[in-house]
């Protein structure tokens, strides 16, 4: 199993380590997922996400290439800015969802999910053959941490020299923490203000300690999942996979009307099923794979679910038949043989 540069730090903190996408990762620390979740919603949490993959795309044809390979519009990015995007296959589905940062006019840093790095790399390299650009795997070059929560700008402002109030959402800044060079972006996946810090792997434990000493609460993958779900963000392998058309989801905004790889298979298709948010009206927790019913007819399946630590409501995502996807539709989720009433809601699942 692969270890991030912060493995020893996690173990020393008493984290429960689990295997995730071939990596040994902290699922939670001794105080538990609930406390970590609340720390991010109310103050500041710190996540190790060094397992994610970094891929550099550079060369005179880099913009044209990513314009064709990804669904959002990288050409629209100002230098230093990043955007959420997706990597389509040629069957109307997705290979991964990504974050793409424009570092120079023709140079981008692509962040991919840990489980998909090899697939994303292989696909990008094949597709790049017709373009004047290179695809370089920098996954081993970078440690990545996410500092998330309403107090994160204040905390980080104390440990870097730069004025962070000027750093806008999705913008990047090169700075240093305790002498360690850090590439900072105002991004994250929790629904809160926050920053992602890219640094050299050997510097990661120093940066981590500086941030936790300043009050950031160590958070594991468990809280990362409940936070992204509450915020209404999809997770590849749950909401999306090789067969799911993003145009049939609340994330259709990502897909721009332009020529892109696999467009014919994705575009102009009717949506036999749609991705929706669910809120249970009675007690129970929806989980991936649970069946969804309308009346007695099976209409779909849950892709993710949890008890919202913030609202105490049971929430989730499900792919359901298009005619059962209207907001307010009364559905039922089968939980251990019992059909529990639920209603279709629009994410996010908490007021922002």
């Amino acid at each position: 199993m692969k270890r991030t540069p912060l493995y020893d730090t996690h173990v020393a903190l008493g984290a429960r380590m689990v295997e995730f996408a071939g990596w040994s990762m902290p699922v939670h620390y001794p105080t538990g997922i609930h406390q970590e979740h609340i720390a991010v919603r109310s103050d500041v949490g710190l996540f190790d996400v060094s397992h994610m993959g970094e891929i550099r795309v550079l060369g005179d044809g880099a913009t044209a290439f990513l314009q064709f390979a990804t669904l959002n519009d990288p050409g629209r990015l100002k230098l230093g800015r990043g955007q959420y995007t997706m990597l389509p296959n040629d069957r109307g589905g997705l290979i991964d969802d990504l974050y793409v940062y424009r570092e120079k006019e023709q140079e981008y840093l692509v962040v991919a999910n840990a489980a998909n790095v090899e697939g994303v790399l292989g696909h990008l390299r094949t597709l790049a053959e017709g373009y004047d650009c290179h695809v370089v795997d920098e996954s081993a070059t970078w440690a990545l941490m996410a500092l998330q929560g309403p107090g994160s700008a204040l905390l980080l402002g104390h440990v870097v020299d730069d004025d962070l109030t000027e750093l806008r959402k999705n913008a990047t800044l090169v700075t240093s923490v305790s002498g360690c060079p850090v590439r900072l972006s105002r991004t994250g996946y929790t629904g809160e203000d926050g920053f992602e810090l890219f640094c050299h792997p050997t510097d990661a434990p120093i940066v981590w300690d500086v941030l936790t000493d300043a009050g950031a609460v160590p958070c594991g993958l468990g809280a990362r999942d409940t936070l992204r779900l509450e915020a209404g963000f999809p997770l590849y392998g749950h909401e999306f996979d090789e067969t799911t058309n993003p145009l049939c989801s609340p994330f259709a905004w990502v897909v721009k009307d332009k020529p892109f790889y696999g467009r014919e298979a994705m575009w102009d298709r009717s949506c036999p099923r749609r991705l929706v948010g669910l809120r249970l009206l009675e007690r129970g927790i929806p989980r991936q794979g649970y069946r969804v019913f309308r009346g007695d007819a099976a209409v779909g399946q849950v892709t993710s679910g949890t008890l919202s630590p913030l609202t105490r409501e049971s929430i989730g995502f499900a792919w359901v038949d298009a005619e059962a996807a209207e907001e307010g539709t009364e559905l039922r989720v089968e939980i251990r043989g019992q059909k529990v009433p639920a209603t279709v809601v629009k994410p996010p699942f908490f007021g922002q």
Partner: protein
Amino acid sequence: MQIPDNLRYTASHEWVSAPVDGVVTVGITDYAQDQLGDVVYVELPDVGTDVSAGDPVAVVESVKTASDIYAPVTGSVEAVNAGLDDAPEHINESPFDTGWLFKIRVGDAGQLGELLDAGGYQRAVEKEG
């Protein structure tokens, strides 16, 4: 990890109190709650339900997973811990006390002798770990 000497245990991580007037109290062990992580939801059997040793009779759900709880002995459900509806975290905070799950009126007292003692359970956990 606590394994109180005055309780009996199953290999599936339930604890069972000594019988009081033929009724035992059942919960999950400190080891089990630690493995599960933050418990957020508990589904308990109806009072009066007849259960056989080994039947799945309750479900404890943590943030990440749902785990079946088995009847350690045959009998009927005498009471359930309704306090867990609003405060399932008692299972994490106090698994042997306020985190108890249900009580069973024991049908066959001989079954109690088949349960593990603290030492036996300790060895079962070590084998797992």
